[in-house]
């Protein structure tokens, strides 16, 4: 219930920010569309603590800042590989551990890997991810303790 209220508040803010027209007719449309979304949410059971813990929202921006740096680094790495006259890549598959208790953390882990150029998550199992990597270097970045540390912090915060 608390979670539904939070989500409704976020949706109202989001709608007001995107609309820009504050007359009765559009406001009524806004209320109706938010009600529709909340109704669908309840039917799909996707609006509860397990799926999106509110505390995670507070921690996520710091995680994003770290991820953004990693993304910039690997973008440069992949761009260099693309422009190199001789193709110097070591494509490879590997299973990497993803021992998270919460599904959200696993989703964040898998999506972060895919978002980083040079690595793509191919399969998600219970506690491993099958990852395809462009070079040895991008694979090593995934197995670094730094990434594990960041995700541990994220999981502890829920």
């Amino acid at each position, binding site marked *: 219930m608390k979670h539904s209220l939070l989500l409704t508040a976020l949706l109202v803010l989001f709608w007001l920010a995107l609309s820009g027209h504050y007359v009765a007719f559009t406001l009524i449309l806004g209320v109706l569309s938010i009600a529709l979304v909340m109704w669908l949410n309840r039917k799909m059971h996707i609006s509860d603590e397990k799926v999106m813990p509110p505390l995670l929202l507070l921690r996520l921006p710091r995680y994003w800042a770290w991820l953004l740096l990693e993304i910039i680094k690997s*973008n440069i790495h992949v761009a260099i590989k693309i422009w190199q006259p001789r193709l110097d890549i070591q494509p490879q598959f590997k299973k990497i551990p993803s021992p998270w208790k919460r599904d959200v953390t696993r989703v964040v882990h898998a*999506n972060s890997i895919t978002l980083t*150029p040079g690595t793509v998550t*191919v399969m998600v199992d219970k506690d491993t991810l099958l990852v*395809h990597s462009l070079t040895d270097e991008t694979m090593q970045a995934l197995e670094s303790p730094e990434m594990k540390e960041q995700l541990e912090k994220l999981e502890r915060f829920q």
Partner: protein
Amino acid sequence: MWDILVSYCSDALLITGSFLSLTFAIGLLRFPDFYTRMHAAGVSDTLCAGLIVLGLVLQAGISLVTLKLLFILLFLWFTSPTASFALARAAHRAGYRVSEQEEVASSNS
């Protein structure tokens, strides 16, 4: 003075973004197979889109448009890895393998 500075910054961001977009296209042509080509596409999803949107934000100034542009970026960064994952998973499940060595690596582990 300030306007000129902002406009130059915006140009620099847009040009760098476009250059990365070109890089992505060349990577798409040069890389040998499906999975490696996906990595080239990763460049266009992330930094290329980010730089172009930031360049446009500088052009727009502080307004509701800025907020909308940033939301576009946020949703792009949420949805594109999901789409990439769906593609990669579909390819893998359909049994698409690249070379013998990679196939062994994925079935052993």
